[in-house]
């Protein structure tokens, strides 16, 4: 009796804006599905430009996730376990790409890794490595925006790992490196995977930094988001919408698949 009455108490004052909010978010996606060129979807997606862009996007996004993981996880470890002056600043910088406008990020990358950039000039002179206008450059741009996701989830995971397990492992004779490999890492692995998947989805959808830093060349740096943008410009809206649909399905799949992991990091804490 009391339970039923309690449920009815959800006030309109809260529900109305909530419904508006949900509509606000869902409507554009519905619009995409509504206007999707279902009849030409397969043709659009199998056209040479689309196929090239899809293949390239897959390569760059996976590469970017790998780079972000290799750099971001150790960084997260240091942030979680070490204390040093300026730690808060370093953490803020690691999360900067999350809030920085992507194009600004692209410009910053140019100034750092471009042909005349701080590091880029040296890379070019000494190793002959050039990043702008290359696929590697696209990977760098995508890694830049994906890294914060890996750092955040990994740092939280490392913080939450029960030190007591690590203590137990050490008393059993495991060196710190062994403890990390055989106890800590397996315990944080699920969280790391979640962070990597999220980072991957973000890398997949990156536009501003990619086009600014890596440029736009079909087969080399024209990832799916760039192809969507240009298809729209040239009036090939069918291709644009079809590719957008692909990205939408992928991102939805990722978010649904992750569910509690991202929305409640403590909800699925290790025992």
């Amino acid at each position, binding site marked *: 009796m009391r339970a039923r009455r309690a449920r009815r108490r959800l*006030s309109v*004052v*809260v529900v109305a*804006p909530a419904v508006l909010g949900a509509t606000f978010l869902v409507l554009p996606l519905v619009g995409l599905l509504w206007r999707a060129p279902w009849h030409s979807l397969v043709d659009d997606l199998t056209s040479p430009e689309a196929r090239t862009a899809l293949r390239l996007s897959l390569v760059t996004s996976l590469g970017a996730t790998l780079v972000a993981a290799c750099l971001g996880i150790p960084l997260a470890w240091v942030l979680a376990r070490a204390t040093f002056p300026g730690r808060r600043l370093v953490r803020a910088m690691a999360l900067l790409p999350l809030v920085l406008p992507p194009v600004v990020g692209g410009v910053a990358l*140019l100034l750092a890794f*471009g*042909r*005349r950039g701080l590091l880029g000039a040296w890379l070019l002179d000494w190793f002959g490595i050039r990043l*702008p*206008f290359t696929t590697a450059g696209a990977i760098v741009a995508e890694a830049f925006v994906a890294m914060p996701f890996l750092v955040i989830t990994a740092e939280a995971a490392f913080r939450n790992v029960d030190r007591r397990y690590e203590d137990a492992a050490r008393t059993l004779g495991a060196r710190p490196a062994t403890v990390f490999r055989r106890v800590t890492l397996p315990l944080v692995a699920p969280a790391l995977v979640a962070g990597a998947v999220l980072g991957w989805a973000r890398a997949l959808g990156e536009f501003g930094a990619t*086009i600014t830093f*890596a*440029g*736009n*060349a*079909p087969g080399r*740096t024209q990832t799916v988001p760039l192809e969507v*943008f*240009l298809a*729209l*410009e*040239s*009036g090939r809206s069918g291709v644009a919408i079809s590719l957008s649909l692909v990205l939408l399905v992928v991102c939805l799949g990722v978010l649904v698949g992750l569910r509690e992991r991202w929305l409640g990091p403590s909800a699925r804490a290790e025992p």
Partner: protein
Amino acid sequence: MTTMASRTRSGTLVVAVMMAVAAACGSGSSTRPSATSPPVTLGVFAASSLTEAFTDIGRRYAKAVPGTKAELDFESSSDLARKINDGAPADVFVSADEPNMDKVVSAGNAAAPKIVSRNRLQLLVAKGNPKHFTGLADLEHPDVLFVLCAPEVPCGRLGARALRKAGVVAEPASLEANVKAVVSKVTLGEADAGIVYVTDVLASGASAEGVDIADAADADLEALYPAAVVRQSTHPDDAHRFIDFVLSPEGQGVLARFGFRGP
């Protein structure tokens, strides 16, 4: 028990809604300009290559016709055409080529375009021309990195045509979204050269310089700038007045100063 809290919540919500409504109603009214009525703002969609010239024209127009103001939106002509066809609130559209204007005209969103200016292509290179470019043929060199506009952008279409005409077989490192992005890549030092307009070379000032393209004067490599009043304009008379101003001696004088040619 919670009536106090919910009353406060309802009150806040009502105030918020009222404020939103008031803000929405506050803008946009269509009245004739006069010294006593509110100023008219014209939405002018102009191609990126017109950035510097039209900014100046816009200022002069506001002085010349009191009670009006020109709000300028500079993007690639293809982007602008798409937006206008999607219903963007523009009054005037000035495209950098006829195909993009045709996209708008054939959709019924503009009529009777008039050519207001012309432009020519030029090769933009770093200041001092360190790599000693002499023409398009130098772009074939394996060490050269050059950029073009994307093919949908007028500058890109013309640039590709220029390369074909010169028999140059070379692949650009990137196809930029608009001509100003090409300029940026060259001035930042990322690209050695880019095909832009003469006006862009002039506008880049001390950061870069231009190298002439042999066939630039050919009719099929010249950029034509048609201007038209957009159908959904709320101030069609003022829109026409703006286009007339561009074609007036004062307007043309500004354009000439920035490197454009007369219609």
